């Protein structure tokens, strides 16, 4: 809808489809699919202490995050003497907590070239990305109670951007009855990034996908799209984690954040992300999260809910009427770790719904329905044997009411990923196999089979393209050090 950035080949009505595209692209960008070696250097622990299959967290990994990344087992903090005792102290890492992460991929699409409006590119018959992603992390303790997970990412579209990141202050209070209250204040640039579970959008499986996968062109709610990698938003918030009960086996987690648009760096494309994106947030967008985890000796389960209310301007101009996007969701995770983690199972399920209240923008011909709904359900499970062999299987559903202005109309180009009926309904299966040559070197194969794509199984774009034409196979290698 931003006429200043929307190429002429893109009809305004397609713009919000693109937002979904961009969101999914940003989502993948925002997934650091690895343990961060600087965390390992700080704690002395191998990746598998805090992670199952990356970046999925174990309960210890969740605690490490909740405690603000400050746990430091190795004596790597250098205490510099103050001139006066009452002066602020200074502790510096002897080894800077810096890490590098590299992904490369090769991918193939079943039905031939598809035009991706999210990346503004085409899939081609197959796409090699070297690199698919390069990230530079500062991840670790900054001071006694302050830690950072901050990373810059280079993408295939060129340029560096701030990927999903947070900086947090955390402390805890232990009570004689055995309960513990962990509390923290954080700044982040992605809703759900501070979350310690992998059933929320920013951390959900699959933990990577090719930039050219048609999976990224499926519509997604704003809370899935709103990533630091896609647009400059920033949130300030706080969280409480109350560990109580016999064996502190009950965890209650509460988080609240307030997001605003700001001036920042979007990954790859600067402040303007792609041909179209939502405009800035009007005023403040509140985000709320509640979750409960029950721990047993070798397994745990979590159930939670989240919500976010966002008013966004339809163009990059922060004035006039705004669109309202009300997101809400439920999620659950079950994790079996076994003794010494030789065999690990994790399963996730999440449902996210969005009520959309649109304002037409006559100047660019954008005339959506006054109200739309969009919902997603994701169910997936992962298995890891000896932290070496992994497999994942998942199914996703997306559905909502038709809106040609959002998901269509047909363009006449058979390669375009648009809906002839303006219907967002999509579903499909994802299968992934992983091999970890070392804990910081992983090879993966991922196959996505679409049963329904943007409203139909066959001829969904009115130009003869079937859902199965978008079936996608990719091979990925990542290294982190």
């Amino acid at each position, binding site marked *: 809808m931003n006429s200043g950035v929307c190429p002429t080949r893109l009809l305004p009505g397609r713009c919000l489809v693109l937002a979904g595209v961009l969101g999914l692209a940003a989502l993948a960008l925002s997934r650091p699919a690895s343990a961060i070696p600087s965390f390992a250097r700080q*704690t*002395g*622990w*191998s990746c*598998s*202490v805090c992670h199952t299959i990356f970046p999925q967290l174990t*309960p*210890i990994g969740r*605690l*490490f995050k909740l*405690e603000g990344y*400050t*746990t*430091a*087992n*190795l*004596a790597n903090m250098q205490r510099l003497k103050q001139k006066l005792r009452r002066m602020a102290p200074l502790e510096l890492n002897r080894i800077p907590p810096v890490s590098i992460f590299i992904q490369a991929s090769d991918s193939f699409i079943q039905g031939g070239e598809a035009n991706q409006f999210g990346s503004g590119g085409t899939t081609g018959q197959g796409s090699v990305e070297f690199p698919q992603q390069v990230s530079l992390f500062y991840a670790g303790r900054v001071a006694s109670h302050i830690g950072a997970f901050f990373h810059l990412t280079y993408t295939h579209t060129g340029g560096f951007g701030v990927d999903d990141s947070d900086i947090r202050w955390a402390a*805890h209070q*232990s009570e*004689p009855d*055995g309960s*513990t209250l962990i509390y923290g204040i954080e700044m982040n640039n992605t809703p759900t990034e501070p979350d310690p579970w992998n059933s929320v959008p920013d951390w959900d499986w699959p933990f990577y996908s090719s930039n050219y996968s048609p999976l990224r062109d499926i519509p997604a709610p704003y809370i899935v799209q709103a990533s630091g990698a896609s647009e400059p938003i920033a949130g300030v918030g706080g969280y409480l984690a109350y*560990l109580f009960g*016999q*064996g*502190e*086996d009950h965890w209650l987690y509460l988080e609240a954040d307030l997001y605003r648009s700001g001036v920042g760096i979007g990954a790859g494309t600067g402040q303007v992300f792609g041909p179209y994106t939502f405009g800035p947030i009007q005023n403040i967008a509140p985000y709320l999260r509640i979750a409960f985890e029950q*721990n*047993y*000796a*070798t397994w745990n389960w979590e159930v939670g809910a989240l919500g976010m209310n966002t008013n966004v301007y339809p163009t990059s101009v922060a004035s006039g009427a705004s669109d309202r996007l009300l997101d809400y969701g439920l999620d659950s995770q079950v994790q079996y*770790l076994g*003794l*010494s983690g030789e065999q690990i199972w994790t399963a996730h399920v999440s449902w996210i719904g969005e009520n959309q209240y649109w304002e037409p923008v006559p100047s660019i011909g954008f005339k959506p329905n006054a109200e739309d709904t969009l919902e997603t359900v994701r169910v997936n499970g992962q298995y890891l044997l000896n932290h070496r062999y992994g497999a994942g299987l998942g199914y996703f559903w997306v559905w909502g009411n038709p809106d040609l202005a959002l998901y269509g109309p047909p363009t006449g180009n058979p390669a375009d990923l648009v809906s002839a009926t303006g219907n967002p309904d999509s579903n499909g299966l994802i299968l992934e196999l992983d091999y970890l040559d070392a804990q910081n070197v992983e090879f993966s194969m991922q196959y996505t089979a679409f049963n329904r794509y943007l409203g139909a199984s066959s001829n969904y774009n009115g130009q003869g393209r079937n859902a199965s034409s978008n079936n996608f196979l990719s091979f990925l290698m990542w290294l982190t050090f």
Partner: protein
Amino acid sequence: MKRRPAKPALAFFLLCLGGTASAATATPPPHPPSRVLTSCSMCHSTHGSDPRFGFIPRLAHQNQVYIIEQLKAFRDGSRSDPPAVMYMWPVSEALNNHEIVAVARWYASQPAPRPQPGGQLTPAGKAIFQKGILKQDVPACMSCHGPVAAGSGIFPRLAGQNTEYLEEQLRFFKSGVRHDKNADIMHMIAIHLTNRQIRAVAEYLTTL
């Protein structure tokens, strides 16, 4: 190196004789030491009753002498079972002697963990704990660890310990994977136990 099964009686008797009667420290510290807060609590919990995984031991009310000895064994690498290498070597590497004593004193002074429900093998485990298995040269566990498994000196408290932790450690003793300073005596005992008997003992001890 394959270890030769041996009659444990003499060494066992001498070691038990040498146990001292100390258990929890007399004056509990008012606040946890910083190392407990910044490191130990991550896995063992601040008060030591609520470790995050079943294979992590409960440290609450553990014998101070035993904790000190084990932390030093982690630090000098003499205790090298897989979880020790993975989790405890990095942690203990950063601890000086003063911090080791402070950590041990804190956990030893914490209230004993509450008993946990046992399993189907609990009665069999109770029999092994109290009477041993003569025909397998397995002495009664309580001869060293005490009638209620409270331990003494270098003999750890086992009452209320996690079943999974006990089971795994007994298997480590049996296979010889755990071979720290005083592990030989446990190796000589555990080598005569079947895996089912190991599980039974572990299930019983968690109920105490």
